[in-house]
């Protein structure tokens, strides 16, 4: 988006130049909002919308990380398991009572979560680049590992944040708001803005898109392909950690099923947002829009009586296929 606005002013631009693929997710979101308003008048209320967007924060933030991985030509299936793993370790640290002061405990726990997320991402990145294993297989493996470790840590049960002091201190991170805007929504937009800056404005971002566009060209241009790829997985890990930081105060507990299937939702959000799975194109705001669409579809189904809410998974599956078909037809026209 920023690209079109910044292009050479001497060249006359017309409607034909607008990339329909970039606009499509926003059009879809607008149509959904209209549909929702017809289905149930309560849907369009500010409270409901803020509520829905707040709930989409986890997937939205994880999917922003996935946008980096995918636009560099990679894939990360382990993010759902990583959420469970990172959140469990973070809660266990806070329960350990290593630091007496609740505030210090919380700050240290947050730093620890980010470090674990980055380390998990680094592991994924090194296995795919240095180990030269297909990202699908590599992250399928770590997906099992992170999930299995979580199950083992929790001994099959739940890991719950025990200290009431830390709990009350931590609660506002999910439930608090600034000027009436819930904090998770602010977190989505800060993450999005940072990610968009890195991907569209920095040298690293340009390298990510070059590697995803054609790895050979990148290599022949002197770009350190493995380093660029590995860092995308670290960014993914950091995004997962940020999502964990929002997730922990919501329930205060994790289990072996935390974040189950989130990887599929994140990939769906990325694809619905207009990022090509083969790499080379990344659309941060499209991805966030995609995450909103997924949550809103679920919400509309809950509020309306047309479709059983038990069909949410099937509908989300259908969305990804429809999104791909729409993109394909838009390519053909341009």
């Amino acid at each position, binding site marked *: 988006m920023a690209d079109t606005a910044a292009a050479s002013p*001497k*060249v006359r631009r017309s409607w034909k130049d607008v990339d329909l693929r970039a606009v499509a997710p926003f059009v879809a979101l607008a149509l959904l909002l209209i549909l929702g308003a017809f289905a149930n008048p309560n849907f369009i209320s500010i409270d409901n919308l803020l509520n829905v967007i707040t709930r989409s924060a986890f997937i939205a933030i994880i999917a922003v990380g996935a946008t980096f991985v995918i636009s560099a030509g990679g894939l990360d299936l382990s993010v759902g398991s990583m959420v469970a793993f990172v959140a469990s370790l973070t809660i266990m640290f806070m329960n350990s009572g290593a630091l007496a002061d609740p505030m210090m405990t919380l700050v240290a726990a947050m730093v620890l979560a980010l470090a674990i997320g980055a380390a998990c991402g680094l592991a994924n990145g090194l296995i795919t680049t240095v180990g030269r294993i297909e990202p699908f297989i590599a992250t399928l493996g770590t997906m099992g590992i992170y999930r299995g470790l979580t199950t083992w840590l929790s001994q099959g049960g739940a890991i719950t944040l025990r200290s009431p002091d830390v709990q009350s201190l931590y609660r506002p991170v999910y439930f608090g708001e600034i000027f009436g805007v819930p904090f998770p929504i602010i977190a989505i937009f800060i993450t999005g803005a940072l990610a968009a*800056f890195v991907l569209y404005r920095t040298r690293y971002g340009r*390298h990510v898109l070059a590697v995803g566009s*054609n790895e050979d*060209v990148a290599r*022949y*241009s002197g*770009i350190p392909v493995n380093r660029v790829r590995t860092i995308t997985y670290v960014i993914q890990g950091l995004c997962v950690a940020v999502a964990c930081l929002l997730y922990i105060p919501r329930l205060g507990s994790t289990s072996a099923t935390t974040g189950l299937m989130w990887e599929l939702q994140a990939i769906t959000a990325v694809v619905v947002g207009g990022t090509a799975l083969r790499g*080379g194109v990344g659309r941060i705001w499209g991805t966030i829009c995609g995450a909103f669409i997924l949550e809103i579809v679920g919400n509309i189904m809950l509020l309306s009586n047309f479709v059983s809410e038990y069909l949410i998974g099937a509908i989300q599956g259908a969305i990804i296929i429809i999104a791909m078909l729409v993109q394909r037809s838009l390519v053909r026209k341009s």
Partner: protein
Amino acid sequence: MNPDATPASVSSGSPVLQAIGLSKSFGPVEVLKDIALGVNAGEVHAIIGENGAGKSTLMKVLSGHLQPTRGELRIDGEPVHFSGPVDAERRGIVLVHQEILLAPDLTVAQNIYLGRELRKGLVVDDRAMNEGARQAVRDLGGDIAPDVVVGRLSIAQRQLVQIARVLLVPHRVVIFDEPTASLTPVETDALLKVIADIRAKGTGVLYISHRLQEVKEIADKVTVLRDGKLVATRPASELEPVDMARLMVGRDVAKLYPDREAVAARETVLEVDDFSVPGYAQHASFQLKKGEILGFAGLVGAGRTELMEGIVGLRPGRGALRLAGKPVHFSDVHASLKAGIAYISEDRKGKGLLLAKDLRENLTLASLGKFVRGLQVDRARERAALDQAISEFDIRTGRKDLLAGQLSGGNQQKLLLAKMMMLDPGIVIIDEPTRGIDIGTKEQIYKFIAKLAQEGRSTIVVSSEMPELIGICDRIIVMRGGRIVGEVAGEHMTEDEIVVLATGVKTGEAA
């Protein structure tokens, strides 16, 4: 000289395959303009022209792979329309592709009968196919066991299999698209015999090549294309190779290359000592002098590209490199670029440019560090650099926001040169600098290379086009089978001397 190859008298009557007013455009670019052409039975009709003259496009239209934009095709005087290559084959027009299109893991017989397997009831009849394949290859003067896996054959043997596969279809016109491009002189001679046999059976042959001596030997008629236009069709007996060259280029050939002053002995900037790229190049040693243009000649597969890729760190290599006397080793392109060596790949679409990105992003990709201000890439400075590159390298583009993939081949090559020159390298290695680009752009690129030398930069040019190397280089190193086999300079820089070195066979014996 092959006795069968003496041109028969040009037969008259209605041509088997005829093109009338044929034009073909890709988008706004017209690559074929109003071509009129006829192929008679029992005649070899050669199509010659520079790279980019439209030869391959013409062949693809004649064989149904592409639809003409205007004009019509006739078979035996009747207008026809090919819906695709299969349709053309059904009518007896078959094409032998330039590239080898065989499945390497299947046997000779399986490849020859691929898609038209002989069956006995429900199962394939391997015995009949092996017998048929053996006979088909023998008809072409070859001797290859039909149950050998194609991946184990030499290039020449594979080509024979490919021809056998094509000739299995009942055919009236066979089109050969540069069949000798990767063959040794002996293999070429064998292939010319095959073609003479095909002609003797009353089949029309269209033969594309830019090897003029070969054309003189085999062809009855010669058609010259230049910039998509038909320049002349003449009996081969009336044309000597030098006349053909003049018609192809449209002017005296010598003028294509810039005049350069002789280079006096100067200091060595790059010394390569006993350098090997495992599997591709062995024990290569050479020196590159300041301000010199050094050519690398050899057949396809001689290991020239791989040697250069090894030197700049794109492939693992062993041996010593000294840059201005200091030992260096490059583990990736980042390191060699930093040391001032730029390698410009022969594969500009696959390894040189991001076809789906715009000109600006391509131009600055290798030198992005120069455009970073604070944390951001400064797009205004990138655009200024693009403006400068467009004028300096004469990149012809209507709009500056085009994608690299939308440029013509010649303009892509200029953009790639501009991209690598952004780093101001002291040593430039250019692999196949003019592959697939038009004659006008070629001349510009030769001038550009000459200018590099004038500026005191040292250049290595890897090329399969010998006239080009002879025209622009100070001296030429020849490689064969992964080894440096010789060097020619001065008056010894002739095609004959280079071919002798590149093939290990004296040309006299081959012809």
